[in-house]
């Protein structure tokens, strides 16, 4: 069943590229929409040329430093944003007064479209990776923060009472009950927060930088080189998929204690 599904999924992908090729290759189809045969290729690129761009990137090795920068920015934004979200989420979850005091500000900060901060970060942190990291952090922080906050509020009171009866001090409760419970919520939002870190990195690069895949796309756009733009998008998409796989693998290892619906070993 699974193999059949794979087959159909691959076929669908091939079909999409095939259709794209047929629709954009000049002079292949009689002109319907545009009278100029090169028009479609100008707007939508040509998959074959796009693949050539990608192949050249990887063969010449030109893409690697850019990918590396984007990866670094994503990882840093994720780690810093998660740690901040965890710390502040725990703190506010455990001090009702502070959380009531800050509640409207947090809501406002979260509602604000944070992409507009990118230019400010560029002024503060320059055109290097840190301005992108900062943008990613603002995106990741709120996801993790809200999850941790929720996680702290929803610690089972019975588990908490039990740990108390077993002699846990306040600090031990924090370390052995609140933190594990909150971390599990962080992991449950792992896919979203890694995705957001990635978005922060790419958008930051796109808005102003000298490196990274977002920068490549931006440059190509400036030169109306639509094939390179699409090549960049495709590389980013594959990259995001790889990240997502990595997150799934990490999740599986870190959350062994979590119940999974209908978890049985298949008989071989």
């Amino acid at each position, binding site marked *: 069943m699974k193999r059949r599904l794979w087959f159909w999924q691959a076929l669908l992908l091939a079909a999409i590229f095939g259709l794209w090729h047929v629709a954009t290759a000049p002079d292949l189809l009689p002109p319907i929409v545009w009278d100029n045969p090169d028009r479609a290729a100008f707007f939508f690129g040509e998959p074959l040329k796009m693949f050539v761009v990608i192949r050249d990137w990887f063969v010449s090795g030109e893409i690697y430093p850019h990918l590396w920068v984007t990866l670094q920015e994503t990882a840093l934004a994720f780690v810093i944003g998660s740690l901040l979200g965890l710390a502040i989420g725990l703190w506010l979850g455990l001090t009702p007064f502070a959380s009531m005091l800050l509640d409207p500000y947090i809501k406002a900060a979260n509602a604000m479209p944070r992409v507009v901060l990118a230019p400010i970060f560029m002024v503060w942190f320059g055109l290097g990776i840190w301005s992108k990291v900062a943008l990613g952090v603002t995106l990741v922080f709120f996801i993790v923060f809200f999850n941790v906050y929720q996680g702290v509020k929803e610690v*089972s009171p*019975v*588990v908490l*009472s*039990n*740990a*108390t*009866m*077993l*002699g*846990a*001090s306040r600090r*031990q409760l924090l370390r*052995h*009950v609140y933190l*594990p*419970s909150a971390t*599990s919520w962080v992991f449950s939002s792992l896919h979203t927060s890694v995705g957001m870190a990635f978005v922060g990195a790419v958008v930051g690069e796109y808005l102003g930088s000298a490196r990274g895949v977002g920068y490549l796309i931006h440059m190509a756009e400036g030169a109306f080189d639509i094939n390179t733009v699409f090549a960049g998008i495709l590389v980013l998409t594959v990259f995001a998929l790889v990240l997502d796989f990595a997150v799934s693998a990490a999740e599986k290892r870190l959350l*062994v*204690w*979590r*119940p999974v619906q209908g978890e049985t070993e298949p008989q071989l």
Partner: protein
Amino acid sequence: MDPAVSLEKVTCTFAAKSGEGHYTAVKDVDLAIAGGEFVSVVGPTGCGKSTLLNVAAGLLRPSSGAVKIHGEPLAGINRRAGYMFQAESLMPWRSALANVTAGLEFRGEEAASARAKAEGWLERVGLAGFGDRYPHQLSGGMRKRVSLAQMLILDPQILLMDEPFSALDVQTRQLMENELLELWSADRKSVIFITHDLEEAISLSDRVVVLSAGPATRPIGEYVIDLPRPRDVSEIRLTPRFIELHDRIWHAMKGEVLKGYAQTRNRTSG
């Protein structure tokens, strides 16, 4: 000698769910458990048994009344007591073994010796070899037994047990009951044991306390169980004295059980 646990005129009033009004779960409850005594508390569902146990544990401050532990007023958590909760209380992110060692860990005991002790306790509750399972990988009854080991490893003087064995099948249950009795007779802990099951209450206890239906629950009967010890819980049930006691207590309880059921239903529907 001062009783191990004594509740004096304990009243607990909760704010009603709807936000207005109050619900008095227990009212003016006097209950004293002597050092080394095994007392069972039975009563209809929702009458306030868990509430009383939480008060004795120091987790819930009564609205009025006093709690004394060995003659001293209880302030904060009752450090001499071990509590086995009615609901799921294991830390889901810890394996069974790590759950059992938790209390020792909190006390700063060395990991290796804590581990060795915990393995011994898991074996005693019949879970040798299940130490590395997480709570969700255990059955409900197994989780209860982990909770039991988790409590007993700390060797508390006072045991507060809230329907500890109701999730077990009859055979395992009797094994655990006998194990508990053996443990108890070894160093005479004071036990407050809550159960729905009158037979269980009689076969284990020195004394059975029957609570009235809520609201404003209070004890309506106390029965000294003068069955000889040591007991075997399955054999003792067949003795004439057991049957006699059972009849007497059940007679007193029956009315309350029906009342309790009707009231719980009215509260939820009305």
